[in-house]
């Protein structure tokens, strides 16, 4: 079976600095993979490379056999990869509903001319988009605030809305960049349930970056550990915990006292 996402020999340099070097990863459909590593290890850069924010210096990224390097971000998103951001990047001044509706952009079937005159496929399409968006919001329990501005939502709900918005693009692969950042232990437990539930309900493959070890160890099936752009381990969570290289990256080298 062909992997959903196949990253091979991915390398990215910022001027002289090698942010990601020789990153390899094959993701099977429905997997839940975690990327961990100390700050500055290049985790978010990997996401930025996959989604086309940066163009990889070397290597290839294939989604279902289709090369993604060199494509624009919106084309990559339309072909089935959606993401959230480390620091929430909602459209703050727009309504919750509009945030989700915008994510349908890749799927609209009417032309600009039809939009200018509100004719042809415009009506049926807009109706479909509104219904789908509201259904999605209802599923995420955000429908009560559908017409509020996104910026007034409490922090936890903003995180939720970001995930909902990403799912509205109809992805096969969902990239979550530190979904638990700024959450308390109780909220993290809820988030774990949410992530599991999303995978089951929307049939998406998930890759997540996280520093919260409890979350990562509990829900991820495989972990990739990065340090200074290098992959230092790729294992099951239980094995990662005792891997000496990982311990070294996080805690420093062991010295004889």
């Amino acid at each position, binding site marked *: 079976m062909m992997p959903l996402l196949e990253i091979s020999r991915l390398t990215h340099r910022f001027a002289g600095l090698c942010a990601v070097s020789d990153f390899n990863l094959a993701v099977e459909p429905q997997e839940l993979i975690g990327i961990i590593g100390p700050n500055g290890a290049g985790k978010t850069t990997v996401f930025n490379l996959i*989604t086309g*924010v940066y163009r990889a210096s070397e290597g290839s990224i294939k989604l279902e056999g289709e090369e993604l390097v060199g494509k*624009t*971000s*919106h084309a990559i*998103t*339309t072909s089935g990869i*959606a*993401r959230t*951001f480390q620091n929430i*990047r*909602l*459209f*703050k*001044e*727009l309504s919750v509903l*509009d945030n989700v*509706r*915008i*994510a*349908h*952009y*890749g*799927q*609209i079937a*009417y032309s*600009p001319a039809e*939009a*200018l*005159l*509100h004719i042809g496929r*415009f*009506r049926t399409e*807009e109706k479909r*988009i*509104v219904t789908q968006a*509201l259904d999605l919001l*209802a*599923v*995420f*329990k955000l*429908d009560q605030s*559908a*017409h509020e501005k996104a910026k007034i939502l409490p922090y936890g709900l903003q995180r939720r809305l970001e995930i909902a*918005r*990403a799912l*509205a*693009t109809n992805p096969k692969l969902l990239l979550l960049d530190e979904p638990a950042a700024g959450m308390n232990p109780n909220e993290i437990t*809820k988030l774990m*349930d*949410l992530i*599991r*539930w999303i995978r089951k309900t929307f049939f998406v493959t998930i890759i997540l970056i996280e520093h919260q070890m409890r979350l990562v160890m509990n829900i991820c099936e495989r972990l990739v550990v990065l340090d200074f752009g290098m992959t230092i381990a790729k294992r099951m969570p239980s094995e990662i915990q005792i891997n000496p290289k990982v311990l070294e990256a996080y805690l420093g080298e062991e010295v004889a006292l």
Partner: protein
Amino acid sequence: MISSVKIIYRAWLTCWHMLTNCKYFWPAVLSVGFAFCLAASVFEFLDLYLQLILIYVGINIILAVSLNLINGYMGEFSIGHAGFMAVGAYVASLLTVYVLPPGTSSVFFPLAILAGGVGAALIGFLVAIPSFKTRGDYLAIVTLAFGMIVKSVLENIDAIGGPRGLLGMEKLTTLPWVFFWTALSVWVIRNLVYSNFGRGILSIREDETASDLMSVNTRQVKMIAFVVSSFFAGIAGGLFAHALQFINPRMFDILKSTDILIMVYLGGIASISGSIIGAVIYTILLEIMRPLGVWRMVFMPLLLVLLMIYRPRGIMGLREARLFMPLRDVVTEKFWRREDKGADDATP
């Protein structure tokens, strides 16, 4: 006492909403407005001076609403709007004066105006290209440069009058025509804003990278915004040329662009009703202050300073009158709020 005022206000509001939610509200208002304009220009019950002011109001509404698409909805800062207007004015005037057979210009007037719009839209297409790479202040410089280029190109083509300008247009811009084009431009721009392309425009203002990552084709969106905006600026230019019957390149310099900017920011960004209010107030105030002579240019800016202190976001600022939202949006909103559909309990 207060409660009775409240009751009357509520009743009035309900009636108003019922009226505006009616499918025939806008068609009725527009036909009455058009009939009024037609009667005013045919029977001349408004004197020509008043008619001219109304014509300027209409032209300014088109300019403000179209510029708002870029400066308000898309959040960029274009200072070259008068340049697009100039293109439209020259294309339309050259058509009616030189190209069209004499005597038929009043018949082909709408086509000439349309051609002016298309000409400006083509230029807008070109200006959109630098906007893919540049943003904010830098794009402002690009549009400023574009305005200068248009002006100096027009000044240096002797065949179209050079710096002396172009005359010989008949007075073809009548009140009904202005009403028609104004209504059309407001309607089309509103349609655009309340479509997913329009939401794409808004998302660029909010966060361009995020919108690209949410599948919005930002290049396509910018292209649409610039082309539509410059198209209507061109339309306004054509109407302007045939109202004044004389144009020269100096009319379309940065001061004209600044005028349009003032109308947009006075009315409030990202609001069609705001732009209309801004254009009406600005045009009429300038006329009212005419007796003040040179002092006009002291009081008007002073008013703007005061406005910016007390209403920094303009009169409407990011808000929209319900009246200008498509009925569908207003109705969905009500429908959804009332239904109160409980969420699926399975969601964690």
